[in-house]
């Protein structure tokens, strides 16, 4: 049944058309419907946020990366815990022991970060 095979591609084409079409239609419609009162405040980056001062080409504190690193601890933890939990019946106590060691190492990482005052925003 070659025609059925091609139908599958039709669905893909349909989705591509929808994906391109929807934003075009949405933006066009909103352009037609919205009120137009352009004044200076409307053109700032964050209309209701803090006033931007100067350019964005300045040095700023990269404290966030530490949080990204800490997030990784939990991320990796989930990644390994989930398949382990699903297959728990079959993998037995040895895997339980392994998982305890694994969690202990990760927990130590978090503990270390905590004691090193990484969680303090300075």
């Amino acid at each position: 049944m070659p025609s059925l095979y091609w139908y599958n591609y039709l669905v893909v084409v349909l989705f591509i058309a929808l994906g391109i079409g929807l934003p075009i239609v949405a933006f066009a419609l909103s352009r037609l419907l919205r009120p137009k009162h352009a004044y200076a405040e409307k053109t700032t980056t964050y209309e209701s946020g803090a006033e931007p001062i100067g350019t964005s080409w300045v040095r700023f504190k990269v404290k966030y990366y530490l949080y990204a690193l800490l997030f990784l601890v939990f991320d990796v933890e989930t990644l390994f815990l989930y398949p382990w939990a699903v297959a728990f019946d079959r993998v037995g106590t040895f895997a339980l022991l392994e998982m305890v060691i694994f969690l202990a190492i990760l927990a130590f990482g978090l503990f270390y970060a905590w004691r090193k005052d990484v969680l303090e925003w300075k």
Partner: protein
Amino acid sequence: MNAIWLPEVIVLAGAIGTLAFGLAARRSKAMSDLAMTLALITVVVALLPTVGLIGTVEEGFAGAFRIDGLTLAFHLLILIGTGLVLLIARDGRSDGVPPQYLAEYAALLLFAALGGMLIAAAADLLLLFLGLELLSISSYVLVGLKKTHLGSTEAAMKYVLTGATATAVFAFGMSYAIGLTGTTDVYQIGQTMADAGFMARYGRLLFVAFFFLIVGAFYKLASVPFYMWAPDVYQGAPTAVTAFLATVSKASGMALVVRLFLGSFAWVAWEAQPNVIKNFWSESTPYIAALSALSMIVGNVLALKARDVKRMFAYSSVAHAGYLIIPLAAVNPMMIDQIVFYLLAYLLANVGIFAVIDQVGRDRGSYDLSAFSGLYHRAPLVAWALLLFFLSLAGIPLTMGFFGKLNILLGAVWGGHFVLAGLLVVTSVISYVYYFAVLKQVFMRPGTTERPLAFSFGTATVIALAVLGTLLGSLFPGEVMRTMQQAFDAVQMFGIYQGRL
């Protein structure tokens, strides 16, 4: 069932323990000094089960983790190297590394060593990659440990960026090898490639995979053309870390390339055209030989211009990478013996020299050649030790380095690579020039001061041990080689296939 994972587990536990100790002792400076000692004890304790495992060939974790002669030989190299580096680091802690990072310094050295040990023990691409990353990421941090020192920060930045690129290339090569063969096991990849018709269909892609893979390893070896990071990184890093990169990191890279090349690729043969049988190693040999030849030439020639001793040793390390690759190009039954023996000679001489560089550099505040002037009058014994190390590195006859080079030379001739053998001799002669430039400063130039230079306990121990090892290897090279062959019976070529073919 032996506890084949014991050395790794001890190093891991020691590294975590050192970190925890650093936390507990962070308020007291005297206590945090002990972190280095703790790491040192860890290395010594890890050496015991490693020695105890000698002679075992065993696999664990579904064949991903393999202990054989190759693994154990490299484990010993890595542990001995790390122990000596820790001794240098322990005394050289005033070398710009902020005191509050001492525990992390020690722990990171252990983590990096653990990465190297994993590489040596891995028979699975994923575990190899894990070990490579553990080693690399720890090294990046180690290089940048002198936080307030501009050169160190620059070095760390360059090392991270180029290293990440090399890792990405390695991972890309891995994806081809795994994708085409459908397995991550190093030996299994070789067996799948040997299937009839496989190489005829996918041969070219597997060559691509192979060359991408060895980029990752050759980057760690600092061979041409992946050596550009070496001078800046060697110069900027704390001296102990430089010693680590030059010895342990290089040994790990060698373990990686040996396991990959011999485990997966080298012996695959296929029928390219009817009645024309090709095999992988003879096809890949010209490229590896070219990289080796270029490394020897470029490293030795660039070192001639260096005035900074650490920079000079970066180029010298490139040259030695070239020598070490020769056995891979000239495939012969003794190739692993040649590599391990040469690595041992190189490691001992290099660690000894870096111990002296560290002490002199801290005393004079400079790593320029002239900092070494008059050293003979300031510390005659150390000057003689330095002479021994340099002679060994340069490969002057009747030193350990000479026998190492001789083995490699004979292997190259055996493998039919007369050009490489010739280049080995010629470039070694070139290397005399810059090695003797240092010795000239030490023995024949008057220094600005005649004040005796006191060597601290750890540095003196490193120098003494390195002298002992080098002398042993120089006086009894045959015995050392035979002991090595008996202890790690699998260091002989075909041992690394024991139980797998």
